[in-house]
């Protein structure tokens, strides 16, 4: 291609010229006429990917000239700084999940914690100067620095499971709309922070409060000023659970920028979207919160069982509350080959607001079950390790299935309770084993 070897410098006053008059700048700098009603003035994958790598919106993207396509961004794979081995579903916004065999640690390392962004993370994620506002229907609105949180409230450290509401969506048939998570949008890191309950009590929760509303510093993909990417909340009863943290520590260090640095909510047992990242404000309301991703069909499922592919009226959807019981085999990796006749199988199980009572394995497609050794959780809302040695009667192809049952007697189903948006797939995890 004729232009391939030309490396021009970006004009020093590029920014100013675009700010003053984008069309004129485009004409003068690139000899190109833009504007009119041509949408997405882009050629090539570069712009969107560039935005993701930069981690910001590109406000004048509609005036972006052709020719601005970094060759380095032509690759489909993408590395995320500070993350190891994640499978990237989407680079803008960044969404990446962890292959099950990389989740074997009891405490998920930061480098292995999945990433689920709805918008563009803020540029400045420094703890210095960060403030958290607690207001709405409270007796005493507060503005707190992270230092304030540490000095005014008891600091606790807990292992807490965060799972995306759409984990498992990829298995839906017919396909459901959204990020096609398979198995790895779940993690159990060690979080350090103060209890949301303690902070809300200090502010004084008024009698007519029914819901919280959470606000973060991430910005909407469109780049529109002041538009939130996501703002969800929870019923006040759930909010006052002592295991919800306003967290400023992740595995003994700062939060990862893609996991909500420097401050986030961790509301375990409910969809991850309740755990607002880059937390700036919690306000209390006398109505169900209606921020972005609270309304419509977002994080909602039909209020009755539906057939796969069924069209369900919007008014029949209900907000998801606790996540259902689930487990993950983290050793062995799927498609493992062995020559012996026995295999140690292990993994983790978790159960929304409950605990896991037992985990059983099957190597014969569910005909018979082997009970595993199951550990207690390190604290409520941590996941629980299970393990057993399974024996194979002969050479051949096997699937090891794991089925967790919670303390209310509810087990993982064999199939998926289909819903239009692909949430809450807690059907059993299966790994294949080739025994020779």
């Amino acid at each position, binding site marked *: 291609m004729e232009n391939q070897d030309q490396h021009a410098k970006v004009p020093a006053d590029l920014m100013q010229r675009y700010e003053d008059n984008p069309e004129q700048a485009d004409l003068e700098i690139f000899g190109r006429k833009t504007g009119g009603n041509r949408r997405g003035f882009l050629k090539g994958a570069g712009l969107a990917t560039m935005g993701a790598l930069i981690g910001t919106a590109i406000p004048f993207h509609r005036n972006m000239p052709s*020719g601005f396509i970094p060759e380095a961004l032509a690759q489909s794979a993408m590395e995320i700084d500070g993350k190891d081995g994640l499978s990237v579903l989407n680079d803008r916004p960044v969404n990446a999940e962890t292959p099950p065999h990389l989740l074997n640690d009891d405490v998920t390392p930061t480098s292995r914690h999945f990433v689920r962004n709805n918008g563009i993370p803020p540029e400045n994620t420094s703890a210095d100067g960060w403030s958290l506002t607690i207001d709405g229907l409270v007796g005493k609105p507060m503005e707190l620095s992270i230092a304030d949180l540490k000095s005014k409230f008891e600091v606790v450290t807990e292992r807490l499971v965060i799972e995306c509401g759409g984990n498992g969506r990829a298995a839906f048939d017919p396909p459901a709309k959204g990020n096609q998570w398979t198995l790895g949008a779940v993690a159990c890191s060690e979080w350090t922070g103060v209890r949301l309950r303690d902070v809300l009590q200090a502010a004084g929760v008024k009698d007519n409060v029914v819901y919280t509303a959470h606000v973060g510093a991430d910005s909407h993909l469109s780049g529109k000023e002041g538009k939130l990417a996501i703002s969800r909340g929870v019923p006040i009863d759930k909010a006052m659970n002592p295991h919800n943290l306003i967290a400023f520590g992740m595995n003994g260090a700062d939060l990862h920028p893609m996991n909500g640095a420097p401050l986030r909510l961790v509301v375990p047992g409910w969809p991850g979207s309740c755990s607002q990242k880059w937390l700036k404000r919690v306000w209390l309301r006398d109505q169900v919160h209606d921020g972005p991703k609270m309304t419509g069909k977002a994080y909602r499922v039909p209020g009755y069982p539906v057939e796969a592919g069924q069209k369900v009226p919007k008014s029949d959807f209900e907000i998801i509350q606790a996540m259902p019981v689930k487990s993950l085999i983290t050793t062995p990796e799927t498609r493992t080959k062995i020559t012996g006749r026995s295999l140690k199988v292990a993994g983790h199980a978790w159960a929304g607001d409950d605990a896991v009572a037992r985990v059983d394995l099957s190597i014969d497609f569910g005909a018979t079950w082997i009970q595993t050794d199951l550990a207690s959780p390190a604290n409520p809302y941590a996941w629980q390790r299970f393990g057993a040695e399974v024996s194979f009667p002969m050479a051949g192809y096997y699937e090891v299935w794991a089925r967790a049952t919670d303390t209310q007697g509810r087990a993982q189903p064999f199939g998926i309770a289909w819903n239009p948006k692909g949430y809450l797939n807690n059907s059993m995890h299966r790994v294949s084993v080739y025994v020779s």
Partner: protein
Amino acid sequence: MRIAAFVLAGAVMAASAGPLVAEEEFGGMPAAPGVEETFYTCSTCHSIRLVTQQGLSRESWEETLEWMVAEQEMEPLEPADHNSVIGYLSTYYGIDRRAKAIASEKN
């Protein structure tokens, strides 16, 4: 304003106005009528990968585009472009794409 970030990304820029196209010009989407409008429309704000993961009915694609306009700041498309995009998405990212993929693997 964040255009300075282009320099950080190591942008290679042609001095004259000819496009340098990435290796997969349309994010790996099938080269068929409508691919261009679809790619440009759908990757203004988010990666095309959000689209290429999907398998939705025509009705569901229509609903999606309506939502993009109503709540996600997308500019409405002109009818010709709209039909082109919906047609393309329904064909290549339709509800039957898994079945099609399996069928084509068998051949």
